[in-house]
């Protein structure tokens, strides 16, 4: 229960936060919404940098190419922002609205969901499906990397000392792109058993880009690359989508989950991928 914790930092700016994080003396971690039980149970952390009042980390904006979401933005804001529209905005909102409950959505943040990644985290798959980029800041200096880099290495390994995730940049997609989000859980605020985010970007009736990103059924967020490849360059017929769904189901390593058997989850996963792709395809055509 954070037995060694002695110090709280309350920075007001990103630079200050990075400075606090890199104090070099205390074992220091970032805290935003603080919903991570792993963090709360950590007995090695000596100091926490509370970034919940860093205003420049909490925003949703857009430019000509990207929706830009500050890492400290509560996911409730993503869920409730009318300005998020189109294939990217709708996918973000669909996923954000299915995270936990209102009370949790007001604590869980866009960056926290990526930094403290759990099998049931819902947003990383959305970022992956949308080919999001992540802006990291180390004081003033910043670097922008594909979200996959952070997912592959885990934020804790990827970020250097005194570096934080500052922003998620979500490319906007126009006509010809469809997205769909799907989640299997017992109740509305249950931990996910299967999380799926899909995107189909089509050109002249053929799939230009396919993304199938999944979590919860797996130990962490992964893309079903082979299934994506099966779709790309092809006309997404019902048969092809079904084949891609099967390929996706065959490609994943299913984690243990006491709530349902592997066989069941695999079977339903295939159904859900098929449906999500079908939905994305329908939307792409509109």
């Amino acid at each position, binding site marked *: *229960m*954070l*037995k060694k*914790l*002695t*110090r*709280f930092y*309350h920075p007001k700016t990103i630079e200050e936060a990075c400075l606090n994080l890199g104090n070099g003396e205390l074992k220091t971690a970032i*805290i935003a*919404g*603080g*919903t991570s*039980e792993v963090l*709360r149970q950590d007995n090695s952390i000596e100091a*926490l940098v*509370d970034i*919940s*009042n860093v205003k420049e980390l909490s925003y949703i904006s857009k430019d000509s190419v990207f929706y830009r979401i500050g890492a400290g933005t*509560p996911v*409730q804001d993503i869920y*409730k922002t009318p300005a998020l529209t189109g294939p990217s905005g709708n996918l973000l909102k669909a996923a954000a*609205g299915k995270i*936990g*409950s*209102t*009370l*949790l959505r*007001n*604590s869980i943040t866009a960056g926290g969901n990526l930094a403290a990644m759990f099998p049931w985290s819902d947003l990383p798959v959305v970022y992956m499906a949308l080919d999001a980029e992540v802006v990291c800041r180390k004081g003033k200096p910043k670097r922008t990397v594909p979200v996959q880099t952070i997912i592959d290495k885990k934020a804790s390994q990827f970020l250097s000392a005194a570096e934080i995730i500052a922003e998620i940049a979500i490319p906007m997609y126009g006509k010809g792109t469809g997205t769909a989000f799907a989640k299997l859980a017992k109740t*509305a*605020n249950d931990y996910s058993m299967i999380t799926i985010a899909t995107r189909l970007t089509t050109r002249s009736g053929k799939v230009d880009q396919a993304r199938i990103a999944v979590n919860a059924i797996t130990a962490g967020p992964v893309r079903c690359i082979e299934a994506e490849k099966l779709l790309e360059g092809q006309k997404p017929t019902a048969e092809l989508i079904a084949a891609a769904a099967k390929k996706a189901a065959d490609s994943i390593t299913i984690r243990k989950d006491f709530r349902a058997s592997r066989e069941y989850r695999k079977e339903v996963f295939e159904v859900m991928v098929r449906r999500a792709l079908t939905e994305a395809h329908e939307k792409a055509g509109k």
Partner: protein
Amino acid sequence: MKLNTRINGKEYCLEIKPNAMLIDVLRQAGFKGVKFGCGEGSCGACAVMINGRPRNSCITLAGAAEGVEILTVEGLGNPEKPHVLQQAFVDSGSTQCGYCNPGSLIAAKALLDSNPNPTAEDVKDALDGNLCRCTGYVKRIDAVLQAAEASKKTRKSTRGKK
């Protein structure tokens, strides 16, 4: 360690342990309307408003409440002068054991603050983190809708007077 925070509009400087949870600090400070239910952010009995956002105080470190504005149910109203939501909970029969009410009222307040004209679906969405085992939720949803309606009337009449 010291915690400077505003609770229900009043400044507080509280002596806390660095790893203390906000629920415990608030209860020790006398705000007993903050209830313990699960300790993991699943039931919402401990919900308080932090800078206008309804959150679970059982998974919020007290240290993170430095300089913030906290609203507990005690800050909503009292029997002499109840908040419109409190009155609506009473009138609609939303109160059985009452243990989850403070948290639910906070979540409902947050909803009305951001959306004065909610639909039943909006209410269900906003109160989804506040578990209740007694009521089956039906009357509580009505209560929030009633309160929204009552607030609208009050606003209209005060505007009319001006």
